[in-house]
């Protein structure tokens, strides 16, 4: 069967400033995840340019993109995406190991992060032994491991009950308010988007309004 080329995003022009809290809203298929992947250096656009912290990333290879991801961007996914064979503390320490820290250094820092989100007693548990809310808190700690400027959260409460969801939103607000992190949250939930200071609405790969 012949492959048909589709454009997930067309004519999108977005500028997100350091320290902003932005929500990207849209229905399924609107292109919001593609936009997040491009902002997160997981993907590069077929046309156009993407600048992260003053660096053009469209022409970078896989490893150069990976270096930017591990140093400047932290990801929080809807499905948590923790590694099942590793404990909570090992999951948090992992990006630091990729960034050149020793096992001891990274475990020490991971411990501090997990303490900060109230998981000090759960740090040696594997993901399948943790609740959804706990897993997402571990994922946030992993996102913070290398102290990145930008936190990208893709439907961070999508798999959580309302209480856990509220806790995660509160945590993201704290990262923005107290730590000055740039938060970009992708969601289809209007009520969740209201927590952000700025909202970008996408439809059919184009910005509908801001």
């Amino acid at each position: 069967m012949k492959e048909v080329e589709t454009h997930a995003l067309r004519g999108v022009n977005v500028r997100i400033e350091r320290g902003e809290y932005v929500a990207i809203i849209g229905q399924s298929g609107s292109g919001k995840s593609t936009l997040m992947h491009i902002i997160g250096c997981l993907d590069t656009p077929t046309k156009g340019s993407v600048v992260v912290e003053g660096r053009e990333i469209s022409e970078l290879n896989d490893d150069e993109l990976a270096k930017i991801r591990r140093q400047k961007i932290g990801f929080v996914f809807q499905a948590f995406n923790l590694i099942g064979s590793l404990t909570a503390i090992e999951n948090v320490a992992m990006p630091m190991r990729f960034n050149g820290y020793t096992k001891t250094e990274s475990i020490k820092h991971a411990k501090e992060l997990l303490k900060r989100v109230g998981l000090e007693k759960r740090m040696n548990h594997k993901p399948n032994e943790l609740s959804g809310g706990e897993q997402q808190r571990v994922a946030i700690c992993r996102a913070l491991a290398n102290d990145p400027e930008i936190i990208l959260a893709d439907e961070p409460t999508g798999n959580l009950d309302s209480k856990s969801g509220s806790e995660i939103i509160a945590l993201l607000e704290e990262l923005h308010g107290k730590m000055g992190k740039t938060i970009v949250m992708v969601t289809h939930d209007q009520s969740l988007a209201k927590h952000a200071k700025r909202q970008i609405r996408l439809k059919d790969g184009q910005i509908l309004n801001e």
Partner: protein
Amino acid sequence: MLDFALKDLKGHRVRTILTGLGIVIAITAIVSLGSISAGIGEMVTSSTSKVGSDTIFVTKKFDMSQMSGPPTAWQIDDLTEDEVDSLRSLSGAKRVVPVIARNFGGLMEVDAVDMDDLDIFGAADLTFKEGSMPTNDDQGVALGYVAAGVLGASVGDYITLNKKEVEVLGIVEEGYGSYDLVILMPYKYGEDVYDLTGRATQVMIEPQDVSYVEEIKNTITDEFDDLSAMTMEDALAMTKQMTQTLDIMTLGIGFVASLVAAIGIIITMYTSVLERRRQLGIMKAVGALRRTIMKQILEEALIVSVISSLLALGISFFFVDLINNVLLGGTKIAVITPVLAVGAVSYGVILTILSSLYPAWVAVKIDPIEAIRKG
């Protein structure tokens, strides 16, 4: 990141065991077969080094293809009394020593030789665990260490040779290579035991000088259609040819076993990468470089290969012990030399790493977006 690799291997025990099993089988096959070749080589070298390199061995002509089993199981026809006498009068011969040799029990050999000529036979420096070497006037035998063990005989006991009861007068210490399997007796007594007069299975000729070696060999070849003459060097070359055949066989079996192991490793490692697509994709998403992913897969291969190869080596030592002590009653026909051991373990590691390159490459190419989406 070795700890991550170790954790993954522990987390997928069945896959790890299956990967390792192929390596264990291949390396065990190579080491076990290689040990037999190495053992035969060592045995021949240690025995022949005791005999002078200029010594000429004369036997009835025989066809190598008719020989089977260990050399001690071969039985060559005897030279006649006339032939032995003719050899005694060869020009250039300093000493002519007839030896009656008989296969015993498939593994051992009875040798009857003049006890004054033990030096040419290479048995002059044997030390005794029990009793002593018989003299030419004695009517009894000396047993090699293994031969005594197999026969369960001590000094003073009697063993049966050619339906005759023969007294054991001495038992040689352990560690004399093929002499461990020998039953030695004086030539004259050998004639009595085997009802022969003046005959010999083999005649050993010491030349007056090294320059006579070729002359004596040529004379025997020209004058005796029925006899074959060879020096220790010729015998070594023949043995070398034999061990080379065994080496080729080892290589062939090793190659097939390696191929099967390599295919097994590729399949299990590839399946393991596919199973962990999501995990590897997440690792890339949070900043793992391509070489980090490649390194993790190869580290897993390294751990499995080192453990499996060492395990295979252990199993091979067990097999060699089984062959030498249980099947062959103490003959060191199979020997795992340090070169064989180190070579086999290194080969196992290299084979696994090479076989893991393709699965590692597949892991490197995993798209993190796809992994996250499916997560």
